[in-house]
């Protein structure tokens, strides 16, 4: 052995092991930092340098990163939960009781999983809004937008299938109501419903089906699509670059090395959120009611909170319209959004332009006013099925109110757009904001204002029994 080689080896074992992981430590020079990102398996999902403008936190709010962090938490805690769970009634329920009372940190792991799953829905929706409002769905990013929408649907699917697993009353009836919606799909609805449930009612076969979906099919799809989602960001030239309304981007823009200017804030953000989620999970237990009883539906029987907007629609429409047509049209429109909202000049400008910032507020305001009015009218004043008793309910309680609402929104959005001489893209923005606000309001009404018998109550006067 030559003397100079032995000198290069660190003296103790720990340092030598560290050196095999990161041969030269974290470099401080620009070239070395770029090299490290290129050479690293995990870091190379990032480019070596990023545009300094895109590092502004108030542009992205770190929402995509939060969703990724939550996915990591969900996989880790989910794997732990699997080791204390039997997917068969009534053991499933007893296992959750055991987890809460007998297993070291069992309730903490369950709470972490529960709240991260719920937070993931919020983070994904906010991420979608951020991307939409800054034009991140426009060419060349159409494909990544569609992958994102698919991921959102998978996240909802993961939450919904996970909802059944504790096998309590909450789970049993939310899934009964949720899956019955499927039977209103024309022609194949009943077959589809039976296929998913593995029988005529929610039972042992359903639990096993949902378990398989929840722990393997959906997570594997999520991880595959997520990798594709990340890869496409780089293929599409990184994030959209924030700018002021009407600003032209200069040809040459400042860039910073990924280490440390992107990686450091990412790690800080992840640690801060981990702390928040741990505190929340320690203080707020995940709900668990009595064991599932197929004979008694609780009153009220509510869907999971993220489907309460859908359940609210079901109270006002024939199920085919409330559960299939309206959500189906909305999801289709969301998928196709990047193909009819294509203007490139305002990409990177929050809410497109100064004018459409007002349009956003106006549209949200209209929805905030009109949606509750419509709910109240339909609840107390409009009784289509009584007025048209001889008509089939899918016309009297479906087609007629659907047509009136559709026309109403079309005329309102057209009127706002015409008055303000808005562009096609701003018109799309007005409709999007109106419908999204309506969804939020319906969800809030469903969660907080619906009581026994699904009647309307003030939240502070909700009867308890």
């Amino acid at each position, binding site marked *: 052995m030559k003397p100079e080689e032995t000198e290069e080896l660190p003296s103790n074992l720990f340092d030598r092991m560290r050196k095999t992981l990161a041969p030269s430590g974290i470099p401080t020079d620009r070239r070395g930092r770029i090299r490290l990102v290129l050479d690293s398996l995990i870091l190379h999902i990032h480019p070596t340098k990023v545009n300094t403008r895109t590092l502004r936190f108030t542009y992205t709010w770190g929402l995509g990163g939060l969703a990724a962090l939550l996915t990591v938490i969900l996989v880790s805690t989910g794997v732990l939960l699997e080791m204390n769970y039997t997917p068969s009634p009534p053991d499933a329920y007893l296992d959750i009781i055991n987890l809460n009372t007998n297993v070291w940190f069992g309730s903490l792991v369950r709470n972490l999983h529960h709240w991260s799953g719920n937070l993931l829905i919020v983070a994904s929706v906010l991420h979608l809004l951020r991307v939409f409002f800054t034009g991140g769905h426009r060419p060349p990013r159409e494909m990544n937008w569609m992958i994102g929408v698919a991921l959102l649907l998978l996240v909802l699917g993961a939450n919904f299938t996970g909802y059944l697993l504790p096998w309590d009353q909450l789970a049993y*009836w939310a899934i009964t109501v949720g899956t019955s919606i499927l039977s209103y799909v024309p022609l194949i609805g009943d077959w589809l419903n*039976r296929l998913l449930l593995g029988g005529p009612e929610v*039972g042992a076969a359903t639990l096993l089906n949902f378990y398989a979906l929840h722990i393997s099919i959906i997570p594997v799809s999520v991880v595959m699509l997520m990798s594709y989602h990340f890869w496409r960001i780089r293929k599409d030239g990184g994030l959209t670059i924030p700018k002021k309304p009407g600003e032209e981007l200069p040809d040459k823009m400042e860039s910073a090395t990924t280490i440390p200017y992107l990686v450091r804030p990412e790690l800080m953000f992840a640690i801060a959120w981990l702390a928040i989620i741990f505190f929340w999970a320690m203080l707020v237990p995940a709900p668990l009611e009595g064991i599932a009883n197929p*004979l008694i*539906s609780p009153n009220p029987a509510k869907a999971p909170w993220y489907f309460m907007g859908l359940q609210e629609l079901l109270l006002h429409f024939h199920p085919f319209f409330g559960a299939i047509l309206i959500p189906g049209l909305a999801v289709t429109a969301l998928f196709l959004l990047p193909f009819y909202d294509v203007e490139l000049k305002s990409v990177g400008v929050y809410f497109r332009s100064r004018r459409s910032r007002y349009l956003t507020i106006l549209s949200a305001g209209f929805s905030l006013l009109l949606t509750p009015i419509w709910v109240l009218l339909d609840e107390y004043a409009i009784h289509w099925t009584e007025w048209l008793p001889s008509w089939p309910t899918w016309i009297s*309680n479906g087609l007629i109110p659907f047509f009136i609402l559709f026309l109403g929104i079309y005329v309102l959005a057209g009127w706002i757009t015409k008055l303000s001489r808005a562009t096609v893209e701003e018109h799309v923005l007005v409709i999007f904001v109106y419908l999204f606000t309506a969804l939020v309001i319906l969800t809030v009404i469903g969660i907080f204002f619906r009581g026994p018998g*699904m009647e309307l109550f003030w939240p502070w006067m909700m009867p308890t029994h």
Partner: protein
Amino acid sequence: MSETENKKEISRNNFIKIGWGALAGMVALEIGGVTLAYMQPRLGDGEFGGIIEAGEVDTFPPGSVTQITSGRFYLSRLLDGGFLALYQRCTHLGCSVPWDQVQEKFICPCHNSVFTTEGDVINPPAPRALDLFPVLIEDGIIKIDTSNPITRQNYDPSQVVYA
């Protein structure tokens, strides 16, 4: 190479392409078919779906509704003495509909659908009357076949079974 030979060559190429395409399509269909068939519901082993004895005719007074929990249905005896076995599953979204003895109606807790003692819809959103199970009366004993619920739009006197 002559013109015709050239054409022949291309069409042979196409033939092979189409052949491979068709084979790939068949493989996809087979895999899809096997998966779907594999996932068909397994039949339950007698916990629910057999023939259930509700009791003797005389134990049910006319104008009464009795819940038979083992069969998940209500035995409704109408005022004229006829029987209907009503599946307790709401036709709207599948909740269990409880019988309200005071109001003499079925009122669903999930979305407030209301049904008569015959199972007819008084208040939507339920789109059709409660499903029925066939009622058989042999030697004064009422038996209900719960293997297959019968869907119906409305109540009709022909659905009633008399002793």
